[in-house]
């Protein structure tokens, strides 16, 4: 894009904010505002109050938030392990086998997550694989849904990795396992943490598959948000949403700190 004059550039920037701010930031601001609202009939919320947040502290919200975080941590750890493993293994495969693996990992993204939830429900409804009504089945569903992203970002990172590094290491007498742990993994670390953050955020927000699977004692926060808005408690739902967002952002910020420390290039 060739924009030379300063005024044109300014106009462009203004257009950017005008178009993108409403789409991205406004809904979030609205939710934040609603979470403090006692009522909202005019253009702006009225009767600002903290009661919704006080409700959160009293109710089952803390448990649900903890459930969400634990689910997301477990699912992203499992997804990262499986995705990285598969991406590394795929490197040693022929072109056709690799394409098959790519497709396999893409499946959970292509298939609606409701379908993924339903299929897990059906698959694990009978002994010996009776997992219905357990927290594990929720974690498995989340893992299935986010592994694709882990697999893809590690695959992309591996293809960008200069083979000269591992070859130099091998030339210096390092066995493949040593090369993996001392050279390839550290070089992949920035991509791995990025993938971990993505998986975590996706899992924190997952609703449709979770709805089909969650047991009463393992109710992630999005389900609660849905329940609250479903019974008409919009402002409570907004407060829950703010709690979910804040927690996710907090964890992502933590991950970003690891990334910057790992960013040696």
């Amino acid at each position, binding site marked *: 894009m060739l924009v030379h004059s300063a005024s044109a550039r300014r106009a462009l920037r203004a257009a950017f904010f005008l178009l993108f701010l409403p789409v991205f930031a406004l809904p979030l601001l609205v939710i934040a505002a609603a979470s403090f609202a006692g009522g909202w009939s005019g253009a702006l919320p009225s009767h600002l109050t903290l009661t919704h947040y006080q409700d959160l502290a009293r109710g089952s919200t803390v448990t649900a938030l903890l459930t969400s975080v634990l689910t997301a941590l477990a699912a992203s750890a499992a997804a990262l392990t499986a995705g990285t493993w598969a991406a590394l293994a795929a490197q040693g495969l022929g072109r056709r086998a690799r394409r098959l693996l790519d497709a396999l990992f893409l499946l959970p993204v292509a298939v609606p997550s409701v379908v993924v939830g339903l299929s897990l429900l059906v698959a694990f409804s009978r002994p010996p694989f009776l997992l219905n009504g357990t927290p594990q089945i929720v974690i498995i569903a989340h893992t299935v849904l986010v592994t694709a992203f882990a697999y893809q970002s590690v695959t992309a990172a591996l293809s960008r990795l200069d083979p*000269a590094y591992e*070859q130099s290491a091998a*030339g*210096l*007498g*390092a066995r493949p396992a040593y090369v993996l742990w*001392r050279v390839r993994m550290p070089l992949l670390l920035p991509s791995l943490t990025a993938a971990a953050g993505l998986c975590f955020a996706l899992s924190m927000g997952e609703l449709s598959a979770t709805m089909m699977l969650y047991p009463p004692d393992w109710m992630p926060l999005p389900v609660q948000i849905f329940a609250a808005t479903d019974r008409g408690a919009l402002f409570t739902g907004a407060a829950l949403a703010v709690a979910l967002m804040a927690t996710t952002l907090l964890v992502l910020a933590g991950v970003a700190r690891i990334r910057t420390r790992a960013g040696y290039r």
Partner: protein
Amino acid sequence: MPAPTAAPARTGPPAAPAPASGIRFDDVTVAYGRHGGHGEHTVLDSFDLTVEPGEVMALLGPSGSGKTTALRAVAGFVRPVRGRVLIGGRDVTDLPPYKRGIGMVVQQYALFPHMKVAENVAFGLKAQKAPRTEIPGRVAEALEMTGMAGYADRYPRELSGGQQQRVAIARALAIRPGVLLLDEPLSALDARLRSGMLAELARLHRELPDVSILYVTHDQVEALTLADRIAVLDQARLRDCGTPQQLYRSPRTAFTASFVGTANLLPVTVRRDGVEFAGRPLTVPVGEAAPGATATLCVRPHLIGLGASPAPGGNTLRGTVTELQWRGATHRLYVAAGGHRIMADVRELREPPALGTDIALHFAPEDAVLIPAGLAADGARHA
């Protein structure tokens, strides 16, 4: 299949300096694209070469001639479809890279960016489980040798290209390899640094006389300066091999003549006691060449003088000056003679001839080398 001469595989880390070991390519052919289906293409064709223990061998050739591939075959990153690679008399063709005990410096250095200089240099020692107490001393020694002792705590990104280069060499030397493979190690450096590093590499080799070095380059100056012998590669084949002097003074192929130094290559017909160039007889040693055969006459530009031959029996060529270049200490004349452009490098001229002037050039019979056409182009000579 192990060769009868194969030594038992070395176990454990090399505690002492590796014994002097040479490299041997035994009829090595490397092709890419075998499994891809069509278009298998041979990148190294029936390559035979022996690098003696402690010798510096330059692999010289234009880009794409297969030099890096030859190096990768020694390192074990590419498997020959035919032939064997031996290091120190041991057949390593089927060994993975990490068992070959080589030091290698690749074109882009590939220093590990997440490790400090000292950790980079220690990498090979740790990977081979050298005794912990020995590692710091050997790292310091390798850094000392390459003049990088003061940079142990830096990250590679904090170093200049030349410094990274030294660290890469230190890293390769720290494991005390019997064989050092260098792939265009100076190509990323500017001209001034390059000549400095050339001198340093020569010094390093004097300090480590037992290390065999296979030095890949497309730069004839590097090859001529550093190598005990030069192997000339072109289009996947070994074209010539010999000492720098041999290749320069008596190239066996036109390709060698033009790639090692500058050469006038004149198409000639062999006569009984000389050759005929553009209908005129020239007196040159013809060796075994059969009269009537076509051949190429190689005359180095700096061996051509201005004016008619002062000595009886010398050769004189007449032609027209088409171009004149002043090069400081010398003038290069381009002279059209017999339908060919002949280059002559002469001491700087006080009064250089004007373009278009007819002049005479001369050269002594013993300064010309006859390259018979059709001589097995890939015949390696024995030094």
